[in-house]
């Protein structure tokens, strides 16, 4: 385990769940559309696992419907979607609409991948709470997920 993971896992670790710890946050990591470049998504799933999160990995080429149904059934705090295809805008819109339709808009959305800087503000306006582009550090990603998941648990 990296030092970074050691520092951050105090919030999400389950091994001391019987003691003073809290149950780990649950995160869905997946890819939507025809884009099969899953190295980034798998890497993020891995670092989140090492930071003490429970990560539900859906694999590639999923539909927004599958992602939203999975997020609801697994009762996740955050959905992280990776895009290297340029289709982030339309697919995020569809996911946001479906979450709303299913009364699950409280689930936090996060994006990552080759997303042009020009698109980030419109994604954020639409409700994507964080966007990670190439060069984002593992530390930054883990800390953002930890802060967002804490916020989500606080809503309950």
């Amino acid at each position: 385990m990296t030092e970074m993971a050691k520092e951050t896992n105090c919030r999400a670790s389950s091994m001391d769940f019987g003691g003073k710890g809290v149950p780990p946050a649950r995160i869905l990591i997946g890819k939507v559309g025809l884009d099969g470049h899953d190295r980034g998504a798998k890497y993020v799933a891995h670092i989140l696992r090492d930071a003490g999160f429970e990560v539900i990995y859906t694999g590639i080429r999923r539909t927004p419907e599958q992602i939203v149904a999975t997020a609801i059934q697994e009762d996740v705090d955050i959905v992280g979607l990776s895009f290297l295809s340029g289709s982030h805008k339309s697919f995020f819109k569809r996911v946001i609409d479906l979450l709303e339709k299913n009364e699950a808009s409280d689930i936090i959305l996060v994006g990552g991948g080759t997303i042009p800087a020009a698109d980030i503000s419109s994604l954020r306006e639409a409700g994507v709470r964080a966007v990670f582009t190439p060069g984002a550090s593992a530390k930054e990603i883990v800390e953002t997920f930890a802060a967002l998941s804490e916020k989500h648990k606080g809503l309950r």
Partner: protein
Amino acid sequence: MKEDMQRLVCLAGAGGIRAAARLMTMAQDSPERMAELLSASRVWPEPRIVVGLTGPPGSGKSVLVDRLIAGLRKRRPERRIGVITVDPSSPYSGGALLGDRVRMMRHAADPMVFIRSAATRGRLGGLMLGVVGTVRIMGLIGSDVVLIETVGVGQGEVEIAKLADLVTVIFPPEDGDSIQLLKAGLMEIGDIFVINKADQPGAGRRYVQLRAALALGEGRPDDDLPEVHLISALEDKGVGELIEQLDRRYERDHAHWRVRRKAAIESEIRRAILEEFDRQCAQAIGSEEVKRILNDETSVMELVKEISSKIAIGAYQSGGCCS
């Protein structure tokens, strides 16, 4: 703020998937609420049949579960199916990668299929409660069949499989020699056995070895041996026969299962109380308490009294996710 369990139960009972999922999180996270939930569940609808599927990593369990879902949905389109998949938590970080769903994603958007992943979280008691609770909630939303998939390594996973009415043990063809089949553990808990990957070489020989090993078991008459199925989940061969076998076992044994499930509730509630007691004790015993013992300032018995009285006044109440 505590979520209102009763309200969630009402919503889930009326088909609310989100509410059911929230209840499952409660079952997995909050032992202090489980006794309440288990007790309430006595009047809920129950799944007709709960099947445990276990076996070594890579034996093809997730693919077989995917094919079973497809087969069951085709046979009885009007009936709901629940799936619980258990994957290990890291003993180092406490995190987990729950990846069994990847093989079943084609069913993700099917409203009649509910799939839920659970991490082992390093605590057998808590995990068992979580799975028991999840099975009950699957019943509440009207599931006909519930499949529980666990990796058959270690006692915990074997215990989980035993929560089911029927345990199916799955072996791959390339799983060591016949001596492996004489070892204790997996071989003893199976009601039904599957040699998967029949499309690969060695499956036929493995089938013969497995039948021979089962025949050695404590003088069972030949016609009472657990059934062995040779299946290729990948090619979807033999899965229909397995489903028929599950139905036959239901016809034969469901009265017995019903009695067993009723009897289990008592021990489950006991487990829920113990889990919560354990959680509160763990909170009460810190390095300070250990130091006092090391420095001879107190005895273990004195400390137990002290902690019990603190527990009695509710010093360690809640602390689960919902507080």
